[in-house]
Each structure stands twice: as C-alpha cells, then as structure tokens.
C-alpha cells in the first residue's frame, strides 16, 4: 500500500481544505512534513487515524472538538459545516479513495453533530470499473489492520516505552495482532465460558450430592491455581520494574564522584556473586548426577564381594564363561562333520552328544554379560573410591564458594552502609531507595517461590479430588457421558492454548531476529536486541562474565529499539503478504510508516544513526518533524531519499515564537489556523 494524497478539511487547526501529495518514488521514499510544536503535525497524524478508523490519540474532550472553530463561527446560525479527511492510496494495483466526514449545524457557538461520521471507500478496478463496497469499514481493516495501526501511525515520544518493561504488554499485543489469531482467541473464550461451563453444569446435574461437593471443591482449587499464576505474573512485573529502577539509580551513583568507585566495586562484586551462583548450581547438578548414576556404589561393596565369589566359583568349574560357543556347535551340526572328522547325522549318537553341548553352550549375550559383570565387580572398589573422591571435591569446592560468597556479601553490605551514610545527601538518598527496591525484589522472589509451592500442592490436591470423583460412587451413564464431553471440551481448549502459545513464540522469535538485524545496522554491534520469552524488548551486552541484560537504556537507545521493533513488524507483515504461503488468519500487508517526531528524545548521535536507516524501515516513510529535531546533519543524511517536502505554517493572532518566523506567522484574519505549503523553509 502507498498513500498518494491526503486532503483535510476543517479539521482541528486546518481551516478550509489543505492537501499533501506524498512521494511515490521508490528511490526517494521519504516525505517530510516540517512544522513547529503546536503547528499541526500531530493533527496530521490524527487525521490519518481518524480517516482510516474513526479514532484519534486525543483526550475525549479534545476529540469532541475536531471541527475547526473558524469554520464553525463563519457558518450561518443553523447552517451546515463539514469536517472531513480524504485519503487516496494504491493497493494491490487498484486506486482507492476513502473519505470520513462529519456534518454539523451551527447553533450559536456550538456545533451540533448531524448524525454519526460517514465513511465511504471506493476503488477503480481495471475490470469492474468504479466500485464502492457496502461494508467499507471491514474493507479498510482488511487492507490496514486497525490493531496494528499504532505501529505504522506512531508518535516517537510515545513509542520509547516499547523498549522498557512497561512496553511488554504492547509488544505481546503486537505479536498477537500480527498473528491474526482473533479467531483462535474467540474460540478459547467460547470453549471456556460457554462450552465447558455448559458441561460442568450438566455434570453437576447428573451427580450424587457427594460428587457435587467434590465438583465444587475442584472448581475452587482450579480458580485458586489460576489466581496464583496471575499473582506470579504480577510479581514478575514488579521484579522487572525494580530492576529498571535499580539500574537507573546505579547510573546516577556512577555519575556521582562520591559514589562512583563504590558503585563500580559493587557491580564487580555482583558479577562475582553471579559467577559463584552459577558455579554452585553446576556443582550441585554434578553431585545430583553422580549420586543418581553411581550412588549405588556406596551400598554395593558386600554384594560385589558375593557376586565375585559366585563368578569365581563358576569360572573355576568352567561354567562361565563357557568354553564352547553356541554358534560354533550350530555350525558343526549344519556342516554335518565334527572337528574329529566323525559324521554328524541326525538321530545318531555323535549328533545327540554334540547337540547336548549346544544346550549348555554360551551365547554372545551371556558372554558379554559375564564380561561386563566381572569388570563391574572387579572395578567396584575403585569406582566407589572415585565417587567418594569426586563428591568430596565437589563439596569442598561448594564450601569454598560459600565462604567466598559470604565474604563478598559482607563487603557488599559494607559498601551499601557507606553509601547510605555518605556525606552526599543525593548518594545517601539514592542508596536508601536502592535498598528498598532490593528488599522489594527479594520479597517478590520469595513470594513467587511460595506461590509455586502452593500451585504444586493444589495441583496434587486437584489430582486426588479428580481421582476421588472417578471412584467415589457408582456413576450412571448420564454422568459418564457428561464427564466425557467435558473432557473433550477441556482437551480441545488446552490444545488450542498450546497452539496459540507456540505460534506466539514463533512470531516472537521472528520479530526478535528482525529487531536485532535493524538494531545491529543502526548501532553497529554495540548491543544485541532481543524480545525475551516474557515479551520484554531489551538490549543485551557482551561482558567478560557473559551476555547480560541492559535494563536501563538511554533515550536514544530506547528510540532505536522501538523503531527497530516497528520496522520488524512492518517487515514481517510484508514477508507474509508477499509469500506464497498464505495464512487464512493473517494475510500480512505492505504498510506505510507515518512517524510523528521519529527521533523522540534521542541525542544527536542516535538521531543521526536512525536517520541513515529511515528509508529502509518501510516501503514508504512519512515523517512529521519539528525544526528542532531536524538538524542540518539529518537533513544532509536524508536529502537523497526525500521525494517530497512540506511545511506547516502556523498563523496566530499573537505569535509566541519569534525565532521561527517562517513557521510562526501573524494571522491577518484574527483566527488561529495552520496552512500546508510545499517545500522546506529551513
């Protein structure tokens, strides 16, 4: 899809009609619209949203005032005044036009809406000619899915939080919307709230009073488990928030000379403790493995001696390993001649004698068994000693690591005390706040442990009750049938949930890969970006201790991460759209990117890096930007890729910003309004 033109009429600060023709040149795919704050950049972004979906980012109060005030006041009392946005675009080889309009009548100084806003969509088809479908709202959402619109019509300052723990829900939501799994989720909801509910009621109706009691208990425990799981999710979110806050505090402590060194030392201690914890876990796992695999050796001493005596006895008697192999006897019988030359004819004495050998002879399995057992018995004492030595070494290392950890923790506590009692009030305050956050985080971990234990206990209880329900009393046919139907509904629901989870994970991984590719291009290996299992979008950094999360990003990094995320969504949607493997649930699409204040609060370096890659973010890029954020460097970087440029000039009875006279002008009519002019005035 490519947006060709937008025409806005009497919309917010735009009085009368104003239009913009966007660049359709693939080699110069950027259209830049310059404007000062308050001039109408965000209004233009909202004009897109309103035209396509009838929504805006504005507060409800402001949303009621979309009609331009001058247009209203200049209308006759009782006269009609119309606010509209018309957009022309090409999609799938057809030229589309949409128009959303809202009619009002003037009643004094008030605009009275005439009916609801109207929406029309039409297109020119080479074969069908002019077509105006009856369901335009459904049509437009197929072309440009409404749920994805925050990612291709976005405000830079608001997307920064995508790259924080706060943005997790949005990232998850985006993944969900990209998958087009609304149908799946509706099914999940109906299986839960209609079907399972129906069969639970049927089960109860066909139960004895005793069983009814059990069913109530089962439902209660089920609800408890769900609640505990929800609590764990909330606790994990709190932990993530604490981590971000602690990282922010650490940044400030590092920037303060009074705490810089201590902060660095603590960071080193933390990394050493992390290393020790990993070693302790590895040692503990090794011990478990040793005990699991070789623990029997500790009790094997007497048995080994007895088995050795038996085997030795058999060996002396020549019974083990048997000197003649079965295969050898079989071969003799088959060839019909003994090694001494005697003929071995079936039914004769020599043949019967040789056959007796075959019965007693040992097979390959027996021989292998004998060898293995002899060797195990023979090695048992040394293996047992080796096991003891390994366990002893591991325990010694564990003990040493614990002592080292204790020393480090003591030093860490000392640093914290020093910082809390620092002469610098700022440092002392920061450290106190940090301690509170650490305690909170630790409490959350503790609570998660409690909840997990509760879930385990309750799952056991649930299992017992379900078992009891099966066996408690004689069930009639109706009960059994209802039970089976409920089991089918539950199985179907659980399968669907597993499919959704797996599908989400696949899309998350695909997005994660794309995000990292874009971040890598912009930041050049400074960091790796990843969408984690819990849908947090974050950066990772390589350190001597391994790869670590970077919880506190700078504004510039946040903008890079968020823009990369948006570019990845557009990319995945494009891939889906252009691939042959079409899903019946999500068809993908080619989406333009309309960005208001794309650089957000990024510093110059990050803004310049982003600017270099803007043309690659989508097929068509529309930038709404203030002069403050459009530096000469950025202009230079983007210049070759800009196909069209416009400026929003704001007219005000009393212009406040004297510095931008080309963009802030005095209104001759006395009305505050904005005009769109072609070109960039610098």
């Amino acid at each position, binding site marked *: 899809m490519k947006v060709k033109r937008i025409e806005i009429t009497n919309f917010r600060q735009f009085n009368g009609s104003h239009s913009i023709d966007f660049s359709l040149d693939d080699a110069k795919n950027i259209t830049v619209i310059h404007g000062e704050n308050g001039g109408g950049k965000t209004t233009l972004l909202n004009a897109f949203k309103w035209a396509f979906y009838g929504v805006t980012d504005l507060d409800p109060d402001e949303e009621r005032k979309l009609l331009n005030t001058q247009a209203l006041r200049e209308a006759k009392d009782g006269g009609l005044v119309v606010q509209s946005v018309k957009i022309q675009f090409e999609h799938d080889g057809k030229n589309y036009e949409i128009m959303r309009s809202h009619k009002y009548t003037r009643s004094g100084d008030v605009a009275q809406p005439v009916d609801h806003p109207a929406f029309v969509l039409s297109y020119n088809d080479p074969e069908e000619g002019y077509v105006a479908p009856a369901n335009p709202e459904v049509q437009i959402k197929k072309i440009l899915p409404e749920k994805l619109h925050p990612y291709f019509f976005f405000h830079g300052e608001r997307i920064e939080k995508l790259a924080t723990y706060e943005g997790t829900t949005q990232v998850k939501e985006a993944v969900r919307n990209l998958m087009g799994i609304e149908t799946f989720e509706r099914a999940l909801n109906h299986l839960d*709230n*209609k079907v399972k509910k129906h069969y639970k009621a049927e089960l109860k109706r066909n139960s004895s009073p005793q069983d009814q009691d059990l069913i109530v208990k089962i439902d209660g425990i089920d609800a408890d488990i769900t609640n505990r799981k929800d609590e764990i999710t909330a606790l994990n979110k709190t932990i993530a928030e604490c981590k971000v806050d602690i990282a922010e505090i650490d940044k400030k402590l590092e920037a303060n000379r009074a705490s810089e060194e201590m902060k660095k030392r603590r960071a080193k201690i933390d990394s050493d403790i992390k290393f020790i914890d990993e070693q302790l876990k590895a040692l503990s796992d090794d011990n478990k493995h040793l005990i699991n695999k070789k623990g029997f050796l500790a009790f094997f001493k007497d048995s080994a001696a007895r088995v050795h005596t038996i085997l030795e006895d058999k060996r002396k008697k020549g019974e083990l390993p048997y000197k003649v192999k079965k295969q050898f006897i079989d071969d003799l019988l088959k060839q019909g001649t003994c090694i001494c030359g005697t003929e071995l004819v079936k039914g004769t004495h020599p043949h019967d004698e040789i056959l007796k050998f075959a019965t007693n002879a040992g097979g390959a399995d027996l021989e292998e068994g004998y060898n293995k057992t002899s060797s195990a018995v023979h090695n048992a004492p040394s293996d047992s000693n080796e096991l003891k030595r390994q366990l002893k070494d591991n325990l010694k290392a564990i003990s040493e690591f614990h002592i080292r950890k204790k020393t480090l923790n003591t030093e860490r506590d000392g640093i914290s005390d020093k910082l809390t009692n620092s002469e610098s009030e700022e440092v002392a305050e920061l450290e106190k706040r940090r301690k509170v956050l650490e305690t909170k985080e630790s409490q959350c971990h503790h609570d998660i442990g409690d909840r997990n234990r509760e879930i385990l206990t309750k799952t056991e209880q649930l299992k017992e009750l379900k078992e009891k329900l099966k066996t408690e009393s004689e069930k009639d046919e109706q009960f059994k049938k209802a039970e089976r139907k409920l089991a089918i509904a539950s199985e*179907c629901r659980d399968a669907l949930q597993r*499919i959704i989870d797996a599908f989400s994970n696949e899309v998350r991984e695909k997005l994660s890969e794309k995000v990292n590719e874009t971040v890598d291009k912009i930041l050049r290996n400074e960091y790796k970006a990843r969408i984690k299992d819990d849908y947090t979008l974050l950066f990772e950094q390589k350190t001597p201790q391994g790869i670590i999360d970077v919880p506190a990003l700078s504004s510039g990094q946040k903008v890079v991460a968020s823009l990369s995320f948006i570019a990845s969504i557009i990319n995945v949607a494009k891939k889906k759209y252009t691939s042959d493997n079409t899903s019946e649930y999500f068809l993908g699409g080619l989406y333009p990117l309309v960005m208001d204040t794309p650089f957000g609060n990024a510093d110059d370096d990050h803004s310049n890096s982003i600017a270099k890659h803007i043309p690659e973010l989508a097929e068509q890029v529309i930038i709404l930007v203030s002069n403050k954020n459009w530096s000469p460097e950025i202009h230079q970087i983007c210049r070759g890729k800009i196909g069209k440029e416009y400026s929003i000039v704001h007219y005000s009875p009393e212009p406040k910003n004297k510095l931008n006279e080309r963009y802030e002008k005095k209104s001759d009519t006395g009305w505050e309004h904005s005009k769109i002019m072609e070109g960039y005035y610098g």
Partner: protein
Amino acid sequence: MEKKTAKEIMDTLDPEIKTLLAKVLNIEKSYRHLGHLSERNAEEIGEKIISEIERMVR
C-alpha cells in the same frame, strides 16, 4: 526444554480432537466478519460447538 512449533503440536493431537478443533475454528470463522460479537452471537457459537461435541460422543 525444546519448544514445539504450532505444527508439531497439531501433528501430535488426537485425531478426534484435531477434527473438533477444525470444526470449532470454522464456526468461529463464520462470525469473523462481525467486528464485535454480541452475547447472542457468543451463545449461538457456544451452542454450535456443543452440537459438534454431542455428535462426537453419540
């Protein structure tokens, strides 16, 4: 633990459940053109799924 893909999960489903799941999704798809489902729509869908399960156990 290795994560299974959606396709792998589908492949390991009991054939009966797999068929039911396909039917359930078809029922939901027939309501997809509705942006918002009313309580009446939800009831209808629930009843249709229940009919499919009843047919299965009959």
